């Protein structure tokens, strides 16, 4: 009996000590050369600014990619598709409101989560897009580079949003991805060239739209952080 107690006490001590260690030991950060340095902390506002910058850049690059693709591959009469905003090619687990009033009523938590969800939902399709673009004979290098760049930036954006969630909402994200594609249209082979072109075009348009969403949400979030009164619906 004593032995069991002693064992339990010892286990408690060990677990507590490990917990204390995990909190005490700072995160190992690496600078450019790869050597370990002390992590530099960043304020929440700065982090949010950086996240917004990321989102803005992604949005702008997505628009440029869409234009490049359109000029290169899409026949002129079909340029109108852009205005139409693309077709919904996969359903989301929860609808995102489109009106300003509704969006203004969304909570911070919901905003962040939806941004995260959007980011995570686009990681796979963009990787797929890169492979399909490589299949084209004369895809411009700028387009390929931009697509690649966007994929990389999405990853960092996801990390930033996760940290924001943890900081602002005091939540921990346990699972990296809570979203799964309900529809994978790319599994189907598409022998026709025009059809594949249209599909990629649609993908780019939709991505641009979603990037705009991310940016808008994050900016709204920032507005709320700085001045709550002016951001509310009037």
């Amino acid at each position, binding site marked *: 009996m004593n032995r069991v107690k002693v064992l339990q006490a010892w286990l408690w001590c060990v677990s507590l000590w490990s917990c204390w260690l995990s909190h005490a030991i700072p995160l190992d950060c690496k600078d450019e050369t790869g050597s370990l340095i002390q992590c530099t902390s960043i304020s929440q506002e700065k982090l949010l600014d950086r996240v*917004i910058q990321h989102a*803005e850049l992604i*949005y*702008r690059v997505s*628009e440029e990619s869409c234009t490049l693709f359109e000029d290169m591959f899409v026949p002129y*009469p*079909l*340029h*109108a*598709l*852009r*205005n*139409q*905003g*693309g*077709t*919904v*090619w996969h359903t989301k687990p929860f*609808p*995102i*409101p*489109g*009106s*300003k*009033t509704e969006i*203004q009523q969304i909570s911070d938590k919901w905003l962040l989560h939806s941004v995260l969800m959007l980011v995570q939902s686009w990681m796979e399709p963009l990787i797929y897009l890169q492979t399909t673009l490589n299949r084209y004979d004369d895809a411009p290098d700028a387009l390929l580079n931009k697509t690649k760049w966007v994929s990389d930036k999405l990853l960092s954006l996801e990390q930033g949003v996760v940290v924001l969630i943890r900081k602002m909402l005091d939540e921990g994200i346990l699972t990296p991805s809570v979203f799964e594609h309900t*529809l994978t*249209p790319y599994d189907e082979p598409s022998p026709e060239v025009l*059809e594949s072109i*249209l*599909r990629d075009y649609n993908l780019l348009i939709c991505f*641009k*739209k979603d990037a*705009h*969403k991310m*940016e*808008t949400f*994050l*900016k*709204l979030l*920032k*507005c709320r952080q700085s*001045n709550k009164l*002016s*951001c509310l619906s009037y």
Partner: protein
Amino acid sequence: MAYSLSLGLLYLGLLCGNGLVSARSELFTPDPSRGPHFTGCRSREQETFRCWWSAGIFQNLTEPGALRVFYQTKNFLSEWQECPDYTRTVKNECYFNKTFTQIWTSYCIQLRSVRENITYDEACFTVENIVHPDPPIGLNWTLLNVSRSGLHFDVLVRWAPPPSADVQMGWMSLVYQVQYRVRNNSHWEMLDLESGTQQSIYGLHTDKEYEVRVRCKMSAFDNFGEFSGSIIVHVAQIPSKESTFPTTLVLIFGVIGVVILLVLLIFSQQQRLMVIFLPPIPAPKIKGIDPELLKNGKLDQLNSLLSSQDMYKPDFYHEDPWVEFIQLDLDDPAEKNESSDTQHLLGVSRSGSSHVLNFKSDDDSGRASCYDPEIPNPEDLASLLPGHSGRGDNHPLVSRSSSSIPDLGVQQTKEVEETPIQTQPAVPSWVNMDFLCQVSDFTPAGGVVLSPGQLNSSPEKKKEEENEKKIQFQLLSDGAYTSENTARQLSASVPPSPGPEQGYQTFPTQAVEGNLWNGEYLVSTSDSQTPYLLPEAPPAPILPPVSDYTVVQEVDAQHSLLLNPPSSQPAICPHSPNKHLPAMPTMPMGYLTPDLLGNLTP
């Protein structure tokens, strides 16, 4: 499956609708040739939007209510709904307010005639793609700076975003474009897109009025809004004539001063400048001759100068050189006493070999050595006297300068192996030197060995001085003569030579090879040489007094001089010189005239 369906719908929509969607810029311009159609849809702030249509050629549909607009959102509602608000004030306008406006969703609108149930026009779009923002407000400018010259200036232009656009919330992110032009000009200058609310304009001209305006659009979209009102930018030119006036004055005065300085400089340094710019042409000159001399006309000096020029001509000695240099005393019978000299000189034959005086012309004129007042060492002179066999292969005696004399002296000493040649250290004769050279030996190669002349000719001394080669150099103005005196001395000092037949004067070389005389000069034999050559000779043999002169008996075929033997051996050469002229080294008494020479020359 759903995807392919949506694609098919897309195609349908495209086929049916060809209105405003295909041409974005076409707005508010109804096409009268067409039927009822949409003329455009616009949103100002991304929260509401309006659509307009036109009846077109169908005039019977212009009354209100004949044409109706139906819309459909593609998100979740598939039903066609009618326009929520037909604007009363504006004709043919459908207004969608906030509740009906959703971004990120695509709308489709249709223009229908309900009575006839005909859809005349259809268009699909998303709201953010039809946003044309309002123009910015509050455009103003401030002066940044003015250039030094006062001709250019820079301004900073500021504005505010349109109030309708909710930029603060981030609902709309706007970018601006500033344009400016000179007033009443037709061309607008466009600057780059600016995301901020201010921009600077550089390089504007003063005294010109500029118009500035600005417009904005949503970033990542293409639709610009309307321009804001133009503002006038004008900066008056600051009158700065006062500042320019002194500078021009200073410039003018500076230039004038520099010009004056230059003129003064030129005038002061005129001579030098003339030399630099117009160098004098050199007059023709001959080396060594003073033009003044020519003018004054002193012939003697002129002659000497001119002749000195010819001193080193190589052709000189090819033409009867010895005639000019050698002064022969053929008429003097007393010269017979000098047969010993000649014998000595021609002593090469005593040894059995007959050598011919080679009187080759030598490029090296021996005059210089005779002219040279420097007198070599007594040793050198001793070497020249008889007893000295024709030593040296190339020994142009007189042709050499005095520096050659040491060589001779050395050779002489070498020759007489066991006869140490004592040379009198006293060199009195060098001070009072005669101007005649005493040729004492001829080298086989034809060089002439000069012997030192004796000033104090005492028999005893002469004896003693046999070995010492004193050369009396007597320089003549025009040649290396061996004076008669010296020749006589030489010949007198010559001891009786063994053979009178030996026309050649040799030095005690009977035991050694004969001499070949070369050169242009007479060689005065020093003595009969015998006492010098013999190893049994006394340790300090003295040169017999030798005569300085000798007589050229003949010139052989090789232009060698055949000299008379010394006078101590008068019997040696009793023969007439003429006998031997054609052939052999006998010694004719007397001088050799040019005629004889002419006979002798081959």
